[in-house]
């Protein structure tokens, strides 16, 4: 039965590149991702097991490393829901395998993909399609939100002053990438 065929990974936005004045747009490298559901009482313990505290304040995130692409990141998505990312592709569910708490961990590493926006006009690109308030006082560095961009659901996460990480479902990534690319024209 042994077989020598090893499946290769095809990334949905492979090779795409876009941008405009004051903004660059690139597909993110693959990450591991889980959708994590935890009850209030277990939030601390699960954060500890994960190596990154689960934020409890709406629209905030925590990182274990100094940047999104390294280490583990936990994004508040809903009252009992987090999007946990690992920029190095580590097994997130594995870290929670031993917990006694009643939780839900679902691997969505391939369901989502991400697009990175960088530059002083990055936020204006998002403003073309996201009706949320992305002003500095409301959406500072570290803020994240599940919202919409045009006609697609996305998670927008501000990873730095001029850097945004936009998550969407795989099949919507073509639309989201095109939307962002068009919005970057003629800002």
């Amino acid at each position, binding site marked *: *039965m*042994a*077989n020598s*065929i*090893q*499946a*290769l*990974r*095809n*990334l*949905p936005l492979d090779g795409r590149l876009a941008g*405009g004045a004051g903004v660059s747009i690139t597909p993110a490298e*693959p990450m591991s991702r889980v*959708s994590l*559901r935890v009850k209030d009482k277990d939030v601390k313990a699960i954060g500890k097991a994960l190596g990154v505290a689960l934020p409890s304040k709406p629209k905030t995130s925590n990182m274990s490393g100094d940047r999104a692409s390294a280490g583990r990141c936990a994004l508040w998505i809903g009252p*009992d829901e987090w999007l946990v990312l690992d920029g190095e592709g580590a097994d997130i569910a594995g870290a929670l395998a031993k917990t006694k708490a*009643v939780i*839900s*961990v*679902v*691997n*969505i*590493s*391939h*369901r*989502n993909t991400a697009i990175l926006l960088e530059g002083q006009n990055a936020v*204006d690109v998002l*403003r*073309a*399609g*996201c*009706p*949320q*308030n992305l*002003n500095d006082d*409301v959406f500072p560095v570290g803020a994240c939100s599940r919202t919409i961009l*045009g*006609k*697609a659901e996305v998670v927008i996460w501000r990873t730095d002053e001029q850097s945004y990480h936009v998550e969407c*479902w*795989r*099949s*919507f990534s*073509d*639309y989201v990438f*095109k*939307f962002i690319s*068009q*919005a970057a*024209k*003629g800002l």
Partner: protein
Amino acid sequence: MSGLYRIAGKGRLTPAKTVAFSFDGKSYTGLEGDTLASALLANGVVLTARSFKYHRPRGTMTEGSEEPNSMVGVRRDTARQQPNVRATMQEIYDGFQAVSQNRWPSLSFDIGSINSLLSPLFVAGFYYKTFMWPRVAWEKIYEPKIRAAAGLGLSPTEQDPDHYANKFAYADVVVVGGGPAGLSAALAAAKQGVSVVVCDENAEFGGALLYENDVEIDGKSGYDWAKDIEAQLAAMDNVTILPRTTAFGYYAHNMIGLCERITDHLAVPDADSPRERLWQIRAKKVIIAQGAIERHLVFANNDRPGIMMASAARSYLNKYGVAVGSKIGVYTACDSAYAAAFDLKEAGVDIPVIVDSRTDVDPALLERARELGLTVQTGHSVIDTTGKLRISGIKVAKNGQMANTKYDVDALLISGGWTPSLHLYSQSRAKPVWDGDVKRFLPENPVQDQVSVGACAGTDDLSDVISDAQSAALAAAKSLGVKKPKKISSPKKVTSHYGHAGDHIGSSHGAGADDAVKAFVDYQHDVVANDIRLAVREGMRSIEHVKRFTTTGMATDQGKTSNLHGLAIAADGLGKEIPQVGLTTFRSPFTPVSFGTIVNHGAGDLFDPVRRTPMHDWAVAQGAVFEDVGQWKRGWYFPQAGEDMRASVNRECKTVRESAGVFDASTLGKIEVVGPDAAKFLDIIYTNAWSTLKVGRCRYGIMTHEDGFIFDDGVVGRLAEDRFHVTTTTGGAAGVLNHMEDYLQTEFPELDVWLTSVSEQWGVIAVQGPKARDIIAPLVEGIDLSTESMPHMSVREGTICGVPTRLFRMSFTGEMGYEINVPADYAQSVLEAVWTNAQKYGACAYGTEAMHVLRAEKGYIIVGQETDGSITPHDAGLSWAVSKKKTDFVGIRGLMRDDLIAEGRKQLVGLKTKDPKIVLEEGAQIVADPNQPIPMKMLGHVTSSYWSENCGHSIALAIVEGGRSKMGDALYVPMLDRTIEVEVVDTVFVDQDGGRLNG
């Protein structure tokens, strides 16, 4: 030379900066900064349009967005053409082209003007009265003819190549209008550190200060003062200044819609630049500084080209250096018109007479007129005008008398006073308040967080305008939490020589109820004073009814100049006061907004997301023809050389049953249900039982709504005690998750279970057919594929091609089969490996059409095809999937209703045509006796129908009243050209004992 009527030394345009443009094919020269209206006037072109209904010659009336007449078609190239552009708002550029509208064959000779002679026929309500009978003629004759004759301008025929942008923004203060009030408010607010957006629909900020050259503020001209404030604003980081930007809508929760026109004034726009941008701004505070709009006067033949608002003429002179005529009469009831007369006279233009309908006129104005040698006739009115394509004379009579003196003129300036612009205020749901003293509606009762300042709030004095605006801005800043507001100094000395006192509302002398004259109230819709009087005589009592009966105020200018006149004439006819008759509500948009702007990014590729599966490229490589399934592209059939759709589908269906087929099932909805109460929850959601399902096994489940009717179905696999992998229909994926979340959160929040969509986590490769196992076996590791170990309806986790898989053994074809779930990014690569093996067995790629035929051969339903929201599981022959033991599930009570358990409901059956070659039409009706009289008693309809190559005859599924008791009966399907005899049969056409599933 940029036009004979351009006066050297006047206006602010640069004479050396000429631009060439054309109107109706004729070339002209204008200046950079001209609007089309100013450039045409400079060239002595006064006739610019034909009116909507009577095709009367018309010219520019105004210098702003309220323009009712000068609507033109603008053309950049064959694809970029826009009708109904207001010449007063369109800036020209080198090579600019415009054409007039609503005329044939030409503007000066227009056949349609015969309507004017027939005008006694075309009175208000004409259409309602004339085209009522016969009823059938409306659709066939009247409406098409009227539509062909109606409407202004021509729609572009090619796709718009421009792109349009959108911006959602949040601001502390949005200031609408960049005149003295708006600028003062914006600066005062901005100095407090709050974020400010200030917009103006014109190219330049300054409002009336752009042409009121009698204004001086602290030693500066009004214009310089405005430019200075604009410069201060531009230098502040917390301010966004938007010229050429119309605030067109005021919506709930202080949402303001802006349309920013980015390229329409440019000769060579940047290819990447959007043409227009929609701004959707949520403002904490809105300061409306929309200004006021000058009214015309309602007198006989008040619409001849060359008649225009006094302020417009002053603006053309002082902004553009254009005299709107060489011999200009003035007819006014308002002081401000004198300023226009004086400026023109001082520029050397002949002003034969100023007619003032008032008897009591400010002596200072009369004195100044005398100094300039101007004749003023107070207590007089213009009772008629002469001229054809341009005004040539006026008849002036003492008020109350018809004996008149004629004056030769080539232009007439008119002013009936100023109407505060309440459009945005009214759009915000606030009601205007009538002030009888000044005879104005005022914005005194805001209902959202807004304040009106300046002329739109009825403030005339410039000094008050500025200080009111500053106070409003300070109040706004305070309400936004600014603790210690910075002091804002008001100008110390504001002088302006001419006020805005005086007005006339309603018809003027000579246009009364007994005068059979055309005295226009609404220019754009050709409504005259007598139309409104007729409406009152015909029984209209509310201004809302008068408006709809006469269409006054219903044109694209929304009655900006006409509403108050119409209201006053109606009130007069009804013998009521103006506030008792009421003002109509203004609606967005303030001025027309292009569809491009409203749609913005949602055009072309971005009209709707196109979703492709992770194996899409493979299907393309196999030559798939795709079909749209919602947003998804799915492989429909995979034709080989020379095959049409039917041949391809026949081959695919046969190959699946003879060898195997490979199918992309990735679009199916998938939901991971996790938690100790997962089975309990599924027991509630589905009609069948899940607690009894063993780990590693699958079951087909049905979901109903509370009413007991089927709304989705799918196979569910149990991966662990507390983990289920639910599949849904492709179209139902999002709805099912919502439905489940709804019950979980609102009805059963106590359950420990969570739902996560994994539709796109997994690519799904279906391999179906007797050779399915042989095809996948060499690639799979860690799973025993034998039927003993992994029977039909089971699920295993292992690896395939070295990547994790959830391998389902299940079938939607009736053949032994597998659905290989792999992480989406690996799906294409795994499929390629599967395909390589599949080809060794002569297997095929098959698409959704073959999938439909194969499942119909087995009598498997498709939700939405066999079901229509009124079919229960029992109706569909799926009683076995409804638990008889469960005490609760969604739909259990619905299914107990008398009429859902009654005999004789429509039931799913199979149909075989007597002639095996005939394929029924889906949706065709079924009757018992084809010879009964029409309307026949219809028993049901065909839900699915195909040619079955495997059966060698056509097959169909249908829902038929009492269908299951009619097995073997002959029924009939009447069609237009023939009646088809069918036999009621079982729904399963292939492998009735199901042996192939377990192969």
